[in-house]
């Protein structure tokens, strides 16, 4: 059985578009669950989504536990050996309080990739495969989140390109989730049920496309 760690924010956690705190889709509806239903006989799919998680920043309002970098290391150590780590972060870094450009957000993802590569977290002490997933752009209307995400509409549309550059520089896999899903118009930045389903299917294809030699025990 191979194992994949899905490291993300509320859109991996499965936060609903209903705009109720901690309202979460059932496990088989969120995209890691969809992925499990597709590849579950070959893959252990580990869900590691947290609402509000950033790439590398402590959040002075929501708390330092939202920092994706400080939690990544113990998280990976808890789950190793891993065949694949999927990182889908960056949406929360668009919040105006972090004052980051798209390029800087991408550099944050690059820092996470460097952290993973510095740990022998793969099988036989190797480095696991790493897949960077660029989150879909936000909706143009961010409703009551408009001031929190001031300017995010434009910045989020530049993320995929910046992420791809980082993926090339670090030589890791890349997928642009914006090719298959949109943020819901309901709240402007979460995925609805259909989007989780579509993303789960797309990620399953991306995983298979990487190409895995023979089945390991």
């Amino acid at each position, binding site marked *: 059985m191979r194992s994949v760690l899905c490291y993300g924010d509320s859109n991996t956690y499965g936060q609903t578009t209903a705009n109720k705190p901690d309202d979460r889709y059932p496990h088989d509806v969120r995209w890691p669950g969809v992925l499990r239903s597709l590849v579950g006989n070959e893959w252990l799919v580990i869900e590691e989504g947290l609402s509000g998680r950033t790439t590398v920043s402590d959040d002075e309002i929501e708390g330092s536990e939202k920092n994706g970098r400080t939690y990544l290391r113990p998280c990976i150590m808890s789950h190793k050996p891993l065949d694949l780590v999927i990182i889908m972060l960056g949406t929360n870094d668009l919040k105006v309080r972090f004052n980051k450009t798209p390029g800087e957000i991408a550099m944050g993802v690059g820092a996470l990739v460097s952290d993973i590569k510095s740990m022998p977290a793969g099988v036989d002490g190797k480095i696991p495969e790493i897949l960077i997933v660029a989150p879909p752009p936000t909706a143009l209307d961010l409703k009551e989140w408009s001031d929190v995400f001031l300017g995010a509409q434009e910045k989020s549309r530049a993320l995929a390109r910046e992420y791809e550059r980082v993926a090339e*520089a670090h030589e890791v896999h890349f*997928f642009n989730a914006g090719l298959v899903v949109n943020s819901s118009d309901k709240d402007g930045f979460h995925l609805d049920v259909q989007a989780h389903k579509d993303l789960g299917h797309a990620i399953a294809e991306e995983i298979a496309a990487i190409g895995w030699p023979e089945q390991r025990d």
Partner: protein
Amino acid sequence: MRFAPPPTVRVAEHPGGMNQVLARSFNERLIMSLLLQHEGMTRLQLGQESGLSAQTISVIVRALERDNLVSKGEAVRGRIGPPTTPISLNPNGAFSIGLHVDRHAIEASIINFVGEPVFQRRSSLAALDVQTVQDTLTGTVDALLSELGAEQKALIAGVGLTLPGRFEADRPEEQAILAHDFEEDLRAHTGFEVFIQNDITATASAETLFGQAKRIDDLLFCYVCEDLKPRLILGGRIYTGSTPQISICDSETWQRTHDAITSGAQDDDPAVRQWLGAVVEKLDTLVQSLGKFATVSELILSAPVPKSITDVLVSDLKLKVSAGLTVTGSQFGPNALAYGAATLPIHSRFTAETP
């Protein structure tokens, strides 16, 4: 750990066109070479064949996809298709022009990225001097280019130019042709990169890239006309240098025979029969003497004649040589030399080896 902004890479919004191709890394060329040899490979197969990591393959395939050099599979959403869809070169990802200077004409051809002929043209040479050759070359290349749309023109990898190895030593105007820098003329006229090579070496290299020799490592390639021009290919490498040129008949006889073939004469024509007999005899001698120091089990024959004549040549030769030697006729047909010229830019710009 690096905190500097990542370096600029090719991105879809800023296509660099063919000019960027020269800067392609060795690994990218390696992957393209594999895709030129095998029709459709999965990322896993590419990794196993090249020894590159899955992540490196992933980065390279994305870069090739962006430049439209590989097809995006059947699907979907602007990226590579399902994993079962193998990756193939996009036939329309690049084009290449070939010009071959013959004693009587300029043979020209455009091929696509997978070696399929797109256009062919033959322009007679009114005289064999530098000025006439120069004018005919530029006229021919202009005529070829006028067949292409603007989009295809932007994808031209370059111009391949081939000259025969031998002109008449006692004619100064022919020697002047060999000495003249047509390469620079064409570069200035077209703005494309120009690659120059001996005609037989170029067509032999075309056989290894797109033709019958695609998956054969050791073989003897022979081009026959008035002479028998062999190239030995060992370990996928073409031995150039001073190769023997074995005379089959004199130029006038060949010209008459070739004219007869061009106007439809088959192997029952006495002149054609005689030429075929002479070719088989010389080839047999060559193969026998070669066998004394190198074991080659494949012979590929190319000649500026229609397929029906090549087929007779192949079957006649099979009767003569030992069963251990496989004889195959080239599929390139009468335009093999222009085709070889057109292959030069593709070989030089996209593959990991140089011809």
